[in-house]
């Protein structure tokens, strides 16, 4: 706490006894230490950049970039660039298209082109591949040749779509991820109702995430409290029980819920045996939303308990005692004194559970049935089944953005320094 007033500092700053500026001297003195520190963390930095930042960057890039059309159809792409929207395709355009299709077919990339167009306009994939097979015999006039190969080449909607996909960078995948599309004039419109899926699924994912966070809180709070007040040897034993699921494969935990909850499962059989329900009244507890909620609450519970416990353990019992001695009932003492002090743990646990919940994939896939699917299951679907990686990337980017917004909101409302992970 050196209170140096302005008058004590000479013009140009302090100097060392041998006349060097103090700032330079300090920087020199610390440079070596800084270099060593940097070298020490450099391997980690490289690791994080290569395995984390680069793939995420790639993913974000892929969500707006797809050169499946432009890279393989250079001539028609150039034609689209030269001619403004609304230009009727002329013979030059058809020539460019025909030669592109021919070359692309020869290079075995016509499927990639067709797939790219097919994302935007269903039913066009085979148009490209089948035309590609005939393309080596094409000759002038190319309009006639293409029309002879398939009459669909005259479809203005197809040309509008090709113009859109000829730009490697486009927001179309984000539009698709938000149930939006472009009409032939290029206006953004909603997709037909029967194909709207992502927005509702995002809402559902966040709703379920909230619900799972809340059930984790309801179950985790008393457990964490018990852990915090028990003598250490008992709480350590209990802690092992809390941590045990971590040492068990996720698949094993999820499938054991199947064994417990399915209609011919342990719980239903127990209920039938005890006469609470009839044999024909077995309850559907899995392969639906309920299954997702139960299994995910179980799997994510430790992530709520651990931060809560780490916050609760150091709270001395004297706070509640003080409140009681000051005239508060046990409920008031809990609500006004104990609970507020656990807020950093609640915040950390809830944020952790929520973020994990909205990104969870394997558990809803296994026990969620149709109604318990989350957005990540569709991301996986586009990664693995439909192979539309750009759309998967756009969905994932939206999920990431939503989580970041949430994090920002949390910081604004609660304060990120009020977060204690343990």
């Amino acid at each position, binding site marked *: 706490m050196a209170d140096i007033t302005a008058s004590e500092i000479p013009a140009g700053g302090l100097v060392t006894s041998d006349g060097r500026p103090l700032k330079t001297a300090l920087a020199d003195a610390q440079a070596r230490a800084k270099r060593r520190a940097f070298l020490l963390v450099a391997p980690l930095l490289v690791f994080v950049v290569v395995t984390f930042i680069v793939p995420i960057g790639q993913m974000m890039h892929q969500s707006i970039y797809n050169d499946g059309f432009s890279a393989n159809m250079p001539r028609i792409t150039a034609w689209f660039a030269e001619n403004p929207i609304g230009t009727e395709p002329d013979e030059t355009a058809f020539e460019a298209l025909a030669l592109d299709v021919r070359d692309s077919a020869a290079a075995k990339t016509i499927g990639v082109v067709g797939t790219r167009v097919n994302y935007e306009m269903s039913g066009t994939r085979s148009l490209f591949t089948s035309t590609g097979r005939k393309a080596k015999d094409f000759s002038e006039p190319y309009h006639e040749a293409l029309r002879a190969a398939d009459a669909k080449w005259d479809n203005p909607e197809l040309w509008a779509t090709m113009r859109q996909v000829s730009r490697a960078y486009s927001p179309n995948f984000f539009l698709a991820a938000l149930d939006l599309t472009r009409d032939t004039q290029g206006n953004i419109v909603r997709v037909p109702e029967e194909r709207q899926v992502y927005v509702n699924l995002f809402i559902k994912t966040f709703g379920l995430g909230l619900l799972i966070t809340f059930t984790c809180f309801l179950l985790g709070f008393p457990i964490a409290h018990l852990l915090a007040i028990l003598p250490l040897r008992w709480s350590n034993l209990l802690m092992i029980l809390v941590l045990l699921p971590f040492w068990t494969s996720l698949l094993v935990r999820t499938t054991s819920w199947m064994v417990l909850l399915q209609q011919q499962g342990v719980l239903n059989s127990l209920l039938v045996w005890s006469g609470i329900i009839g044999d024909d009244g077995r309850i559907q507890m899995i392969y639906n939303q309920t299954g997702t909620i139960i299994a995910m609450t179980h799997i994510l519970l430790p992530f709520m308990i651990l931060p809560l416990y780490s916050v609760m353990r150091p709270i*001395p019992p*004297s*706070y509640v*005692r*003080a*409140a*009681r*001695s*000051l*005239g*508060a*009932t*046990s409920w*008031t*003492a809990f609500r*006004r*004194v104990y609970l*507020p*002090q656990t*807020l950093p743990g609640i915040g950390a646990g809830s944020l952790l559970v929520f973020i994990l919940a909205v990104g969870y994939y394997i558990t809803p896939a296994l026990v969620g049935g149709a109604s318990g699917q989350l957005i990540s299951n569709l991301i996986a679907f586009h990664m693995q089944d439909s192979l539309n990686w750009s759309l998967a990337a756009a969905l994932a980017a939206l999920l990431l953005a939503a989580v970041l917004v949430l994090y920002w909101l949390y910081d604004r409302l609660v304060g990120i320094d009020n977060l204690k992970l343990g």
Partner: protein
Amino acid sequence: MSVSHNDAYVAFEHVQKSYDGVSLVVKDLNLNIGKGEFLTMLGPSGSGKTTCLMMLAGFETATNGEIKLDGRPINQVPPHKRGIGMVFQNYALFPHMTVGENLSFPLEVRGMGKSEREAKVKRALDMVQMYDFINRRPAQLSGGQQQRIALARALVFDPSLVLMDEPLGALDKQLREHMQFEIKHLHESLGITVVYVTHDQGEALTMSDRIAVFNDGRIQQLAPPADLYERPDNSFVAGFIGENNKLPGIIEELSGDKALVRLATGEVIDATAVNVTQKGQKTLVSIRPERVEFKPEMMPEGAHMIGADVLEVIYMGDILRAVLRVAGSDDFVMKMRNTQGQTRLTPGQKIRVGWHPQDARALEPM
């Protein structure tokens, strides 16, 4: 101050407490505390004093016996209905509330109106000279300041009984002594009853009207500070309070409370019999170092003096402390005031020491 059963404000009647059902941490406690009294429970850790305080506050239940407050049994009354103010060892100020909110809390839970609350909070903070800190949070205060706030909070709802559980333990010596004075002052000006728990005998002697010395789940002695210091009832109290010389011996003669004790080396000394009952009994004679005399002119007529070797003399500023070999034990301590012209002893010197018979207390060995 002695208190009879009838006008006791707080009464422990045959209170016993066990945590494990095997052993007792509080064994048959009987204690009456008068209204307006400052009573200190003093003892080593594990002696049961804090347990007694917690039973009084309502955080522990008595296993057996009855605790009465103002004549009313309170065993079944939950802590928040007892109306007892309490100051905790670590202050227990609510960290998420400001000083003002901390003080307001007991008033709010009592459903008091806002203006009345503010007035009371102001009065309590003024009382500890902390009103300027009303908007601070506890973490922004020093230990001493937190201590004052904790005190103000325990007093703000006007309890007539305040419990303090080692409230000054975390403060440095100087601040502690200052706070002792302040607490004592508040006690006197407010006329409240205070039950104070500490393991610091100096604190207990300074502040209390009466001190209950706890050991092994029992009150060893209950007496005003001077009695406790000068007339310990047993060898535990004698050893626990202040410094004491202990000389083992056998009762040679016993008449009333006067006893002659023969020490191991064969010398005979005078002592006051406290809890020895017959001739030939083993005893431990306890003598305060500052009551030991080595100048024959200071001794009463006919009192015995015995030989001593000076082993070491330590200069301590206000006093001189001499370690002597007396009757075979070489840890016998004598304190001399460092007055002008005081005789300076040197190691190796042979002297004779003695004491007034009432200062040598023949106690039953533990």
